[in-house]
């Protein structure tokens, strides 16, 4: 039985090790704008060319309704989406998340590279505050048992530098631990009773920003 456990642990370790093996090369970024949530990769496998290679913290997007573009593909008459988040996805790569990659009580860009952005296609309400339709950047301040999530109007900006004079709303949300550990930083929407939650998850922590509409 013990042997089984050990070999299972070894198997999982190997699988995780293989699947997490970094393959991409990082786009050159000014050193002043580097931070430990983006790693620098050595020995690029991709032949050099004048066009940028793939980011080590690749970008991704999530819609609400979930998978909206696919829904629209199946039915062109579907009403417009409610929200979309575009963000970069750094990886843990065996580093501790808190007091490793990010620190409590400090600004956290909720991503990497360009500031993470959230687009509301119609007016929404977050914790009783009306948020007008439009594009915002989103960042956070994590504490041990709650996170502050901030919407800011300084769009098309870089994630590491926030202009707090352009904050549109600050929302305190609880944070909980998840059974599993997520290698990649993740933001997705899920349906809720009052609208949708923006689910923010990395390592074994999850926080949900409630959005009503």
């Amino acid at each position: 039985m013990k042997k089984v456990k050990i070999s299972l642990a070894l198997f999982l370790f190997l699988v995780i090790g293989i699947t997490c093996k970094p393959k991409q090369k990082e786009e050159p970024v000014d050193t002043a704008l580097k931070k430990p949530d983006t790693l620098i990769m050595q020995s690029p496998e991709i032949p050099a060319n004048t066009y940028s290679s793939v980011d080590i913290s690749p970008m991704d997007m999530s819609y609400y309704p979930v998978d909206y573009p696919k829904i629209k593909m199946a039915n062109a008459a579907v009403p417009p989406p409610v929200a979309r988040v575009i963000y970069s996805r750094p990886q843990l790569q065996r580093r501790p998340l808190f007091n490793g990659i990010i620190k409590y009580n400090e600004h956290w860009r909720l991503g990497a590279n360009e500031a993470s952005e959230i687009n509301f296609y119609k007016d929404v309400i977050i914790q009783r505050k009306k948020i007008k339709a439009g594009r915002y950047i989103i960042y956070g301040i994590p504490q041990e048992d709650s996170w502050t999530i901030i919407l800011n109007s300084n769009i098309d900006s870089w994630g590491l530098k926030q202009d707090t004079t352009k904050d549109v709303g600050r929302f305190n949300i609880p944070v909980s631990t998840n059974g599993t550990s997520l290698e990649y930083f993740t933001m997705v929407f899920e349906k809720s009773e009052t609208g949708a939650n923006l689910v923010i998850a990395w390592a074994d922590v999850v926080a949900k920003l409630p959005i009503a509409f």
Partner: protein
Amino acid sequence: MKKNIYLLAASLFISSALIAQTSLPSIDKSPLDVSYYPLRYPNLKAQDKITEPPAARVIYSRPKKEDRNIFGGLVEYGKLWRLGANEATEIEFYKPVLIGGKKIAKGRYTLYAIVNDKSWTFIVNKETDIWGSFKYNEAKDVVRVESPVQTLNEPVESLAITFEKDSNVINLVVAWENTKVALPISL
């Protein structure tokens, strides 16, 4: 008994991985990326080095060549191509621009192309927030522009879309494999 435990462990692992994938997505094989004009606008903004406001940005997924024959192979000549992967490739103009002599209002659009050996036809279409080119609707076209194919000496592994300034116009440049094609945009 041992075998059963192995099987159970393996199936639990696989099913938990599947569950994790449905609710929380893993990394895309063709990752998303963004390019701005001016190039690296957000990065410049953080360094207070901006000289002009943003004019355009493109958001697209980046499939890899991976030893495949791309143009005339994976991307068939004469057929509509989504210029990316996953969600349709999106271009946003921050102000009105001219493409192919036509005034394009500021806003978000979807980009497609019909690829041929010597030239491509770029298509700017008004249907946004859609997946790929599978439900392309010609009635929503805003403009079509034909551009010649240029050859690159060094191959490009991951599809790249960026902007290059050329005197009075900016070119939206698409580069992959040994091919480069430019869509001129007048600001």
